[in-house]
């Protein structure tokens, strides 16, 4: 026998279920309870940077929209700095909650385009928005990233995109430019399954 390591174990995850909105977005569940629901403003009206709208839908393995998904977003400001790491823009929160239309599964959020992020090691990552998906049937939240189609040079040298072995799968993380902003559809399963991370 050896000595026992006295670490605790992480609490296991469980699905957020179909009624996640009651807890995290009660207005969407159909009732008002809080003075202020959290995650409604990723970037306030006075945040500096280019205002963008991102739209999309999450699809399951049959191609059907996942209408009860809840997505959280986390991003750097226009200068590539995260709020908890020194962003000085008081209008910028960097974090948001996105809820689809329950009939169509289509979602959209407004924000500002993030800048390139320099990691602690000095590595530069292309502008991106981190996404975390929970829903009924998803037992542990799924992490992915949205990159921008108008950042081809930065994307080509992005260390995370380059870790993806199959170049064709890198495309699953790059949004599409559409009128009025960007579109980022997420596929939970093959054939064009979005790359998800074990972070």
């Amino acid at each position, binding site marked *: 026998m050896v000595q026992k390591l*006295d*670490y*605790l*174990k*992480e*609490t*296991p*995850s*469980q*699905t957020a*279920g179909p*009624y*996640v909105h*009651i*807890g*995290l977005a*009660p207005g969407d*569940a*159909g*009732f008002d*309870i*809080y*003075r202020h629901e*959290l995650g409604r403003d990723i970037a306030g009206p006075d945040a500096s940077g280019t205002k963008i709208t991102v739209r999309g839908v999450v699809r399951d*393995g*049959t191609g*059907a929209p996942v209408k*009860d998904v809840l997505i*959280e977003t*986390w991003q750097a400001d226009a200068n590539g700095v*995260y*709020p*908890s790491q020194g962003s000085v823009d008081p209008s910028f*929160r960097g*974090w948001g909650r996105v809820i689809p239309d*329950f009939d169509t599964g289509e979602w959209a959020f407004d924000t500002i385009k993030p800048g390139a*992020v*320099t990691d*602690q090691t000095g590595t530069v*990552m292309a502008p*991106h928005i*981190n996404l*975390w998906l*929970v829903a*009924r*049937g*998803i*037992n*542990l939240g799924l*992490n992915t990233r949205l990159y921008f189609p108008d950042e081809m040079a930065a994307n080509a040298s992005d260390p*995370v995109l380059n870790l*993806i072995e199959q170049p064709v*799968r890198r495309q699953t993380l790059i949004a599409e430019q559409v009128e009025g902003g960007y579109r980022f559809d997420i596929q*939970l*399963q093959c054939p064009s399954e979005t*790359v*998800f*991370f*074990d*972070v």
Partner: protein
Amino acid sequence: MTQLFPRDRAWHPQALDPNYKTSVTRSPTQPLLSLEGTTSELSGPTFGHSDIDPLDNDLLRNFATTGDPVGERILLHGRVLDENARPVPNTLVEIWQANAGGRYRHKKDTYLAAIDPNFGGCGRTLTDDQGYYRFRTVKPGAYPWRNWVSSWRPAHIHVSVFGTSFAQRLITQLYFEGDPLIAKCPIINTIPDPRAIDQLVAALDINASVPFDCLAYKFDIVLRGLRSTYFENRPEGN
């Protein structure tokens, strides 16, 4: 440089479990891409007392208009810790649940049990500087759901926690000591290790119960631990 402990995915539920039917079409089929944490994962949103109100953690009162909600009054309390057993202070804890009859206040829930006019079913709070949190609520009822012809969820409360890093983000469900439905639940049984299931069962806590008012249940939550590399000057300083 700080890093998170790697997530032990054998301890978590498996993404695909045919007995939990909805997971069949919603579980990724390709391997996840393992990343060392970058600034994007190691940073995370922060919350303060200006974000929430004092009554937000009292589900007996935060939606009530004509009186208290129906059901067994409980105090739910515990600590948020990391895998190093260090408290996680000032972190946002959010909960949601069905009412005592097993009905959710959600426009998509059509179960025949009655809506309680005095119960919303959600609450939120920040942990204190020792990582403690507490809520007052009613014990939720079991309810049926479409999986097998007669599948019933054990009484449970959904719990959402942040920590300090976006990669610590966690949503789970807590169950109640002694519930015979726990062993039968396909959602719980997506977790392969029975010790991990035990970690989701809140213990009846008579010492914290308030005589002639409410029973207490204790539920500690553990988030991923942080480590420093060997060359970090402050090995305990995270």
